[in-house]
């Protein structure tokens, strides 16, 4: 059976999410407060569009929220998104609720209120900006576990202080491990006596606080 997804609020996010979810085979319904936006959304094939305020129970009812598997609250306001998720969860028994929030300090509070997944747009965007700005030092950094843990690819160059050292000779912070070394298309799981060579790419798994310290230790930057 196809999974039903409910998108509430936000024009641009709803439009691109709807397009990509429909392609993946989900049944998507979008709720939007703005009539003009609804008209444009309605041009997307097989997207159901409801015009109204998604924080109102009768609008959610009209959108068949009781049959939805996932509800995603995308509106600009944190409070609206909280109420949408709580209504979906408590009144319509939606299995999974997702909320976008602006204020990263409220992430924990939203979880406490029963929202299953909380996406903080502010910290996600600042994370991407940081990553772009330090692109030459870190190839890729993926935050996981609410952003407290990250996986980073760190390229080692000739000038890096870690070159030629064995792993146990490097003074890495406690909350960091080198999970994998990518060397000329060979992937190896390193041990303490593995020597790091120039051209290696190290895959670091670390807590968000220790990541930059570890990268500095390895690359000298």
């Amino acid at each position: 059976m196809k999974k039903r997804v409910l998108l509430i609020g936000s024009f641009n996010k709803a439009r691109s999410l709807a397009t990509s979810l429909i392609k993946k085979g989900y049944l998507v319904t979008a709720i939007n407060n703005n009539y003009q936006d609804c008209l444009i959304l309605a041009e997307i094939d097989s997207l159901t569009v409801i015009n109204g305020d998604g924080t109102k129970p009768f609008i959610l009812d009209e959108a068949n929220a009781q049959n939805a598997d996932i509800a995603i609250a995308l509106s600009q306001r944190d409070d609206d998104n909280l109420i949408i998720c709580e209504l979906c969860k408590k009144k319509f028994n939606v299995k999974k609720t997702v909320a976008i929030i602006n204020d990263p300090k409220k992430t924990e509070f939203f979880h406490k209120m029963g929202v299953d997944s909380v996406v903080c747009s502010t910290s996600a965007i600042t994370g991407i900006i940081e990553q772009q700005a330090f692109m030459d030092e870190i190839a890729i950094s993926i935050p996981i576990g609410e952003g407290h843990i990250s996986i980073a690819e760190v390229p080692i160059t000739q000038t890096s202080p870690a070159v030629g050292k064995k792993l146990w000779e490097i003074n890495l912070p406690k909350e960091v491990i080198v999970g994998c070394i990518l060397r000329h298309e060979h992937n190896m799981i390193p041990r303490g006596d593995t020597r790091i060579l120039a051209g290696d790419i190290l895959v670091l798994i670390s807590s968000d606080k220790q990541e930059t310290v570890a990268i500095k230790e390895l690359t000298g930057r």
Partner: protein
Amino acid sequence: MEIFKNNKKDRDYTIIIGCGRLGTGLADSLSDRGGNVLVIDNDKDAFRKLPPSYGGLTLIGDATDIDVLHEAQIKNANAVVCVTNNDNTNIMIAQIAKELFKIEHVIARLYDPERECVYREFGIATICPAVLSANEIRKLLGNAKKEDEVE
């Protein structure tokens, strides 16, 4: 009674969020009766509605921001009243006050009574103007009818 002054439970400190007509009226009457009152609003012009005689405190800021609530010393409050003009804001602040700060008395004004299931289980008291007005009007109509019968 002096002994109890520093005891948190006996201290009378009310935080009112939203400085509209209801917020100002409530703040003024509570502070008149000798309670400690703090009004929070994100618009500094809103405080002009407070009468010159108002003896409580004011704080400019967004009360949905947990840092602003800390600044308001919400931990010392025994009552938080949410009377902004946005129902969803009121519900969220009421839930923050109740769940994160364990405030004993949390009251929210809500225009739309339909969202009840969201706050019912949290022990948040709610005031709904539409319901109150309807009751009051029914009472007035009832009285009018009775008067008719007497005549």
